[in-house]
């Protein structure tokens, strides 16, 4: 049976209106032609380095971008456009965010109350994460790192959301704790939720996710199956291949150059300046996303 697509983002662009002088009219484009989709029962890992637009995607879906952000493109939830009116109804109920850190909890409110006003729901969520009932009465500053992570997960679980967007849930955690956190997301997905897992740690994510969307400079370069990462020849985009080679267990080989900054993007393919297969053709226009071997790729030479 075909699994239903819960979230589908296509051709998303996010531009920040800038007020400072000297900025080109139209502002700063931080995300361009970004596409990603998550189906029920699966984990989509969104991987990419800092500044590749991962968190902005999460914020765009949840409608919590700053006021000076202009969003274009399509965001669909359960096959229908996610309008702001619909989003207002859905967020916190069907769509839940697992935030990055303790900064996302009110420092002066007991965590139980922050997870939900419904005590019994909190109790159930806490049981699931093996959090003691007494934790409900603690303030965020009294939690250990591991407890904090579980509390943040509980804020999403308590809603019974169909779509869970986890924004960098593992940095700063020990390997064991991080693995356990990932296991929790796997369980949620196995229970039918669609999980979008935003992460730096592609190595860890690969062990738990179904598919990987690779972001570079604010755009999606490739969407691959997690299993594709077992062999470099299965990967499609030169950047993904470079990423694979950079992994410690593979060649551990860096790719020269750095990701370009928003506002200083090259014409055409954003990866062209660092790509070893670049031709003049690449700099003419941004490559369209196309389907290739059960994945998506934005490269004219990918095969």
């Amino acid at each position, binding site marked *: 049976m075909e699994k239903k697509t819960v979230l589908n983002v296509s051709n998303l662009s996010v531009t920040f209106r800038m007020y400072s002088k000297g900025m080109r009219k139209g502002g700063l484009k931080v995300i361009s032609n970004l596409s990603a989709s998550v189906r029920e029962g699966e984990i989509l890992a969104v991987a990419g380095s800092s500044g590749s637009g991962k968190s902005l995607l999460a914020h765009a879906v949840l409608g919590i971008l700053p006021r000076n952000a202009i969003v274009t493109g399509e965001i669909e939830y359960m096959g229908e456009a996610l309008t702001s009116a619909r989003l207002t109804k859905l967020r916190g109920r069907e769509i839940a965010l697992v935030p990055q850190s303790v900064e996302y*909890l009110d420092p002066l409110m007991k965590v139980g109350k922050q997870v939900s006003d419904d005590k019994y729901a909190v109790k159930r969520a806490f049981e699931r994460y093996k959090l003691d009932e007494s934790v409900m009465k603690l303030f965020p500053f009294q939690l250990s790192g591991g407890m904090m992570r579980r509390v943040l997960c509980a*804020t999403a679980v308590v809603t019974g959301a169909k779509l869970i967007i986890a924004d960098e849930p593992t940095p700063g955690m020990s390997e064991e704790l991080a693995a356990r956190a990932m296991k929790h997301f796997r369980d949620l997905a196995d229970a039918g939720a669609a999980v979008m897992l935003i992460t730096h740690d592609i190595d860890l994510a690969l062990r738990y996710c179904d598919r990987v969307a690779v972001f570079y400079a604010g755009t999606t370069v490739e969407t691959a199956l997690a299993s594709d990462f077992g062999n470099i020849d299965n990967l499609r985009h030169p950047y993904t291949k470079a990423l694979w080679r950079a992994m410690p267990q593979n060649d551990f080989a860096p790719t020269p150059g750095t990701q370009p900054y928003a506002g200083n993007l090259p014409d055409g393919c954003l990866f062209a300046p660092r790509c070893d297969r670049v031709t003049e053709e690449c700099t003419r226009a941004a490559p369209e996303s196309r389907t290739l071997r059960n994945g998506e790729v934005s490269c004219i030479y990918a095969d």
Partner: protein
Amino acid sequence: MRTAAGAIGRPLKNVGIYLLRGVSLLLASTIIAFFLSSIAPQDDPIHAYIQANPGVSAENVARMEEYWGLNQPPVARYVTWLKNILSGDMGYSTSNRRPVAEVIGVRFRASIALMMAAWIFSGILGFGVGCIMGRFAGRLIDRVLKRVCLVMCSIPTFWIGIVFLVFFSVTLGWFPFGLSMPIGANPDEVSIWQRLHHLVLPALTVSFLSFANLALVTREKLADVMESGYILFAKARGEKWILRRHALRNILIPAVTMQFGSFSELFGGSVIAENIFSYPGLGSALTASGKTDLPLFLGITLFSVLFVFCGNMIANILYSFIDPRVKRGD
């Protein structure tokens, strides 16, 4: 886990520390005030009296000095004064011809009404304006109010007092020129409304001192909170009443600090306002005592230090109720 003894012991220990601090503060401030006044020119009533009445013989001066104990060295005089204070005797006010404690009691009642009115007014207005500015940080209303507040901060109390007096009392005639009740009225027959009527302008003058500061501090804090992760997360979770649920308590700490910490400015402001409006409170008594009435001067010093100390102590105690992190700050 905290033991029962610890739970009781900590507050007790805190009270002990507060008391120790308070006593040492009072001691230090009276010592400084005493010796500053003893080295000031025209320090004692004898010289003031002699200047007004030339032709007093040296013998009589010596006799008077002996009577008032002014022939003793300052340290001995201070010790005597301190002993009397400890036995509950604050001395005799030479300018009022009444015991210092009584003068302070009467004057303080008038002053506390003035200061509290100003304090409450500046608190509500400052916090309210600060919340509006912080909520709409960066927008037009914020920019306008911020400029107004910055101007307010720069205006000295005596000047705004005089402007109020000229505008509201002289030009518009809405309020009386001064005093705490109509001239010549029997204090027993003065209604509360008449007293309030006399209180408005001095109170406004004093409150102008601190409301703008409070507003600016509250604005900064609220603007920070609005940018914080937890407000963003609350939005992402579709929470209602986000500001009341998450922001209010978080912006209370700086507001409480400012407002209770402003007791010193409140006292200082009331001294100025009372003089402008001839309002018979502690402040005007203090100015009157400045030259010759040392017991009253020291008494008011002692009292004002106690007043400011209490303000700070209340703020400290309130912290631990507002912010659980403060309670554990040991």
